[in-house]
């Protein structure tokens, strides 16, 4: 029956903007000893005043433009008042009537997810419950956050995951968020069976947890009857009622008159727009046109810098071979070595890919060369010249080597003839050892098989 029930999901996503200093003061956003990165402003001392970090505003405008939003001008800050120990002033400086961006969308596969608003606000302090008491760390107080709010256009937890994946991909392309940042979201969920009476799940942290919480809540709403609007929280395995609510929370929003209204000229907005790099959708389209498989293109465009490096290399070598090498070798190696693409000697990488494509070397040799790929002075061509590890293309030489190998491994030859296919590996291995990996294993295998069958 679940199939005929329509689910609606809306997300409010919070991400930290990667500025060096906080949103309204000069304190650093880096981690530090608790309460060391603080001043009178982010501690809410009487008399302190906020001064807006322009870089943070520009970053959020960039997000707005990448999400096809209209920019509010003028745009201003408001005070959202509620009493809570993590809030230095007992009000949060955020945006209410005039979010920086409004009425945008994000295309996720075949669905357009409408973006209701994108606004900027300050993060509260961090609370730590310890030893029966609560400690407050104001290092986090005042760190800039972007809040991205969708319309309830998402139809399933899977689609929500795809939306978030795409969103994070775009944000990392824009270089406006802290790399590997923890995403936080509030989600509202409702379905047709319950007349779209919605539950809001507050403050779920982490990509996987969000999907898990949505899966749980969608299922719960399909099975249970929902009669009133509720706020729930996610405990890691289930959602739990925090409070049921009749009306919206009342935060008594007023303008924050300490901060002048911001106005943006079209020229200014255009300038920010023009700093947005080509995003992954467009890159995937372009890559598939030049012969890269859809699968490889998707993997390569997950990261802006990998994608940029790929474009450079693909111009000088075969795109399909390069793409395969990126996905199968490069990315795995970076991951294993805990390195980043910017640490890679791109020229060396280009040479390796070229030699593989031209069959000058085998993939095996290529993999060996990859171990020196972080060395800025490394030249694979010179290295091959020295070691002579070029691929053996001369079939006569190869055949001779295969014959020798069969002779030296008579037992394996007999076993293979008896039908033990695995026995072949020993002979192929012997040839590969002899050639120091400069022969193509497939080719070697083919020759040996042929020899043994005709023997």
């Amino acid at each position, binding site marked *: 029956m679940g199939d005929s029930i329509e689910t609606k999901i809306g997300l409010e996503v919070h991400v930290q903007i990667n500025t060096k200093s906080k949103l309204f003061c000069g304190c650093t956003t880096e981690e530090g000893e608790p309460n060391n990165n603080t001043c009178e402003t982010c501690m809410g001392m009487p008399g302190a005043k906020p001064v807006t970090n322009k870089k943070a505003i520009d970053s959020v405008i960039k997000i707005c433009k990448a999400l096809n939003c209209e920019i509010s001008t003028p745009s201003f800050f408001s005070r959202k008042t509620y009493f809570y120990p993590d809030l230095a002033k007992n*009000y949060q400086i955020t945006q209410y009537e005039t979010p920086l961006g409004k009425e945008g969308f994000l295309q996720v596969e075949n669905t357009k997810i409408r973006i209701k608003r994108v606004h900027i606000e300050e993060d509260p302090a961090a609370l730590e419950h310890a030893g029966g008491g609560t400690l407050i760390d104001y290092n986090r107080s005042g760190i800039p956050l972007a809040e991205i709010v969708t319309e309830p256009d998402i139809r399933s937890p899977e689609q929500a995951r795809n939306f978030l994946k795409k969103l994070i991909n775009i944000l990392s392309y824009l270089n406006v968020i802290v790399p590997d940042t923890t995403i936080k979201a509030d989600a509202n969920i409702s379905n047709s069976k319950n007349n779209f009476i919605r539950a809001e799940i507050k403050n779920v942290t982490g990509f996987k947890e969000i999907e898990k919480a949505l899966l749980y809540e969608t299922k719960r709403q399909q099975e249970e009857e929902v009669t009133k609007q509720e706020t729930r929280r996610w405990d890691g395995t289930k959602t739990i009622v925090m409070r049921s609510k009749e009306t919206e929370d009342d935060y008594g929003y007023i303008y924050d008159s300490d901060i002048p209204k911001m106005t943006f000229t079209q020229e200014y907005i255009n300038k920010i727009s023009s700093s947005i790099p080509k995003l992954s959708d467009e890159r995937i389209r372009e890559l598939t046109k030049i012969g890269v498989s859809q699968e490889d293109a998707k993997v390569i465009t997950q990261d802006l810098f990998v994608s940029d490096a790929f474009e450079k290399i693909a111009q000088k070598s075969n795109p399909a071979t390069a793409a395969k090498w990126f996905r199968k070798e490069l990315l795995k190696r970076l991951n294993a070595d805990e390195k980043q693409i910017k640490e890679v000697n791109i020229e060396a990488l280009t040479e390796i890919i070229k030699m593989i494509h031209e069959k000058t070397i085998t993939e095996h040799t290529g993999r060996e060369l990859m171990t020196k790929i972080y060395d800025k002075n490394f030249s694979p061509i010179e290295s091959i010249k020295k070691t002579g590890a070029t691929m053996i293309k001369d079939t006569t030489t190869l055949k001779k080597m295969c014959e020798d190998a069969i002779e030296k491994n008579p037992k394996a030859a007999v076993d293979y003839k008896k039908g033990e296919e695995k026995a072949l590996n020993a002979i192929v291995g012997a040839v590969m050892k002899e050639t120091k990996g400069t022969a193509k294993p497939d080719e070697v295998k083919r020759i040996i098989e042929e020899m043994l069958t005709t023997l």
Partner: protein
Amino acid sequence: MTTIIEQVKMFESGESCDEYAESFIEEAKKINKKFYYFTEFCNKSSKRGGALSGIPVTVKDCICVKGVQSRASSAILNTYTPVFNASSVQKTIDEGATITGKTVQDEFGFGGFSVNVGIGFEIPRNPHDEDRVCGGSSGGSAGITAITKHAHFSIGESTGGSIVTPAAFCGVVGICPTYGIVSRYGLMDYANSLDKIGPFTKTVLEGAVALKVLAGHDTKDSTSTNKKIPDYTKITEKSIKGWKIGYIDPEGVEEPIRENLHESIQEIKESGAKTEKITLPISDEYAIPAYYTIALCEASTNLAKYCGLRYGAQEEPKGFFDEYFSNIRSKNFGKEAKRRILLGTFARQAGFRDAFYIKALQARTHIINEYKKIFSEVDAIITPTMPILPPLIKKASELTPLQSYLSDKLTVGPNIAGLPHMSLPTGKHKSLPIGLMITADHYEEEKMMTLGVELEEKNG
């Protein structure tokens, strides 16, 4: 009595700045025993030389002085000692002044008579009659300025009339400049869109000297102006000849005050300026409700931070955090502060917000436009500062909140419009001073003070 300008010259010719500051503090302590103008004494200076070299300066309690208990005369800030100087304070220190004390006020600026001081504070007394009020909210600043025999000035603050009101009641010059001319950095906010810092002095020229030091752009206050500040001390070289001065002759003004206004009008004519009776019907009707709505909405958010958690009054935390916050706030805020927090919170709540807060903002725009239109025709406006002579403390304390709010009738207009305005003493009834208020267009402090100097001369 020597002026600031004369005294700075005497320091240049060898008089000791430190001894002068000591002598002022000694005098102030003596005065304080009878008049209760101070919440704290101090002696802070960093260098000499500069426009205010050696001059003792007092600071309204709501303006932060580094290392000196600063409480906006509220018990909720007991023990609070700022870690930084307000920009206005820093500027006076940089010009060679000595910061000598913090002056008492209505708690957070919530009053017009200085009778709403916080729990544990004494009501300051009028320098001319101890049974009467000083006016507020910068009562202590005006009082000490009136009595001291030293060259001195006090840094005050106005949200809806808190500089000109006590200036009128104490018989001194109080200057409230255009919103944004003096940095608010380090000012404990009452209402951010309305708060303005300005000086109290004995004479207009001293006020000009002080304002010149206080004024100017500050990167720490985003609302501070980028405009170039003119040399205000040139006002004595200017004349009002050929100007047109508008005057408001409001109803319900005590007779000696009305008579005094007409004397001033006569003096202006004698100086070669035209006068014209004007009215401000929009301001008359809407300034007070709009002002109180905006001010209290903003105040209720500004005062949210005072909860006994990070500074000020504290107790052993017990119960859930909101019980603790409520306990501290209930015990330490005075009655008027509580009233204003409740009114302000109410007026910005969903369902009322559009009817009150948003409407008040719209009314402010109309009021500003009305003033702008008048200033396209006149150079300055004069009115009595207060419709009444300084009342007895007992009487002022018995006023209903509404009666009390209505006494701001004449001062609220320029304050909500962010216009420069000042009060100067233009006469006396028996022993009680009468103040005249001059209002000018935005950034026309020079015009305002030029007229001030002219009237000061006429009044000897």
